[in-house]
């Protein structure tokens, strides 16, 4: 028993040792169309020149219900079925930053912490004592502060930038899992159906087994 307790203590101690990374700011992703559309707008300005979302097509944005004029504005003369490729070519970007900026289609699924990670990263920029930009969440980042949060002290402005980051993350979460809404809606029906089925199966079983007595 003593060894057991010791092992338990070690386990608890062990988990604390693992959680020593920078704490992420937890956020809830919005699923409403207007927020996601706002996020898409902000992303087109702040991210899309370097980052692609190659698994998303302009037509997908229309299907989700975004404004036709906005989508037309973003795509320019590209066809509706074109993927959201970056404005800058991968080679140019690699030359400018040292490595190609990652595709964002699955970004909110590709990091531990998901949307909270991306949000904390976007607002995690600060000025180092040497006057260089740094990032709390991902110190090795090559990306310059995209939303311009460094040096902003005005509370209202910080709030606005954080809101923008949240919108962008909401859009990215939609882009990573465009069928999520449909999936969850269907899930309620499936569970409800199965609940009724299970109740009926229970009574069937009771009835069949009653023959034994």
């Amino acid at each position: 028993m003593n060894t057991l307790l010791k092992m338990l203590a070690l386990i608890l101690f062990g988990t604390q040792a693992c959680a020593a990374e920078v704490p992420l700011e937890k956020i809830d992703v919005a699923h409403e169309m207007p927020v996601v559309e706002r996020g898409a707008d902000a992303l087109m300005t702040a991210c899309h020149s370097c980052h692609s979302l190659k698994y998303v097509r302009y037509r997908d944005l229309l299907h989700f219900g975004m404004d036709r004029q906005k989508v037309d504005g973003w795509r320019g003369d590209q066809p509706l079925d074109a993927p959201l490729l970056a404005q800058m070519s991968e080679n140019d970007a690699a030359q400018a930053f040292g490595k190609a900026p990652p595709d964002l289609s699955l970004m909110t699924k590709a990091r531990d912490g998901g949307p909270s990670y991306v949000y904390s990263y976007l607002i995690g920029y600060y000025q180092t004592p040497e006057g260089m930009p740094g990032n709390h969440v991902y110190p090795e980042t090559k990306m310059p502060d995209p939303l311009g949060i460094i040096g902003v002290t005005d509370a209202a402005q910080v709030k606005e930038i954080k809101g923008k980051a949240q919108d962008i993350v909401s859009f990215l979460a939609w882009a990573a899992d465009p069928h999520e809404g449909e999936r969850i809606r269907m899930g309620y029906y499936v569970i409800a159906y199965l609940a009724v089925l299970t109740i009926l199966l229970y009574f069937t079983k009771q009835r069949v087994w009653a023959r034994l007595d």
Partner: protein
Amino acid sequence: MPGRIIKWIDQRFPLTSFIKHELTGYPTPRNLSYWWNFGFLAGFVLVLQVATGIFLAMHYKADVAVSFDSIQHIMRDVNYGWLLRYMHAVGASAFFFVIFVHMARTLYYGSFRAPRELLWWTGQALLLLLMATAFMGYLLPWGQMSFWGATVITNLFRATPFIGDQVVVWLRGDYMVGDATLTRFFALHYLFPFLIIGAVVIHLVALHTVKSSNPSGIDLAHKDNIPFHPYFTAKDFYGLGWFLIAYSVFVFFMPDSLIEPANNIPANPMQTPNHIVPEWYFLPFYAILRSVPSMVGGVVAMGLGVMMFAFMPLLDRSHIPGGAHNRPIYKIQIYLFLLDMLVLGFVGYVPPTGETLLIGQIATLCYFGSFFTHPFISRWEEQWLIRRGLSAELLALMEQHAQEEEQRRKQRHQHKWGRA
């Protein structure tokens, strides 16, 4: 008319007698609890995996250049492709969960004991096939964890004496995990489930020869058996309802909880992920692998770790019939073993540090210790229980077993020496 058709068939094929023998007349112990549902559930998940897998294969492309893209194509463009893929991915975890419960039940109630050794060993073969299938399937999305998991595990075959390096190249089809590996894993991932179906048939033939064990651990009198159909079909389907509810919660509301985030990044042979973890169902065995300082030792320990279950019928020296129900010490052993599995799983999940390594080593020792000490503990427990006094029912049963054994021995003796 249907009667005539069935008669026509029965003259040429034993349809009615087969159904009677395996279903409507198959004797099943009346007292089976819901723990006995998991064999049926395993069969159900197998069918589910084959069905979703075949449809996924129609849209999936096994080619390092487009595999990752084809998964996204399934997730985004194929009609209900996301549903197929999430059902298949969650199904893999469900399969292992159901099999682990099925195995734990067998151990707890001593269902592996004579005369069910072959049934248990065919089950062990099924576990190995399932593990191989799951491992190869995990490479197919060609994400970071797919690639590095396959790299680490195929690399273990370097421990093969003399020809280790050649074996690794032979398995991968290349010097590193690449296109050749992906295409062969896809081919085998499609093949193995059909081998599993074949092995399940053998498992069922063995089961229908020795019949189901039951919670009392005692072979029941004839009157306590009831036909499988309709009683256990009804009970199994009711259990299936609960299973499907739990499964659907994962499929529809938290499908990504079982997919490592790093597997949403395409495989990159130039960049190792911060820490490589296998799927949850391999974690205890992975922890055993990492607990042994030498690679060869680790591989042997891991392989042995999976295979230890097969030795249980030989390691159990007690003559007390049944399982934990009749054996208090054995019950404690089972619970401690399950706890040890959880500790190993945790150790396999966290990045290795000094402490977790130590816990892992202690837990590995406990893991093997619980098997190797079992012959002595079970024998001692038997003596202790007899001294303490057994119920008349158990004593009578043991007496009967001993007599049967004596008779068999005499027969063998006569057969060998009688005619001389």
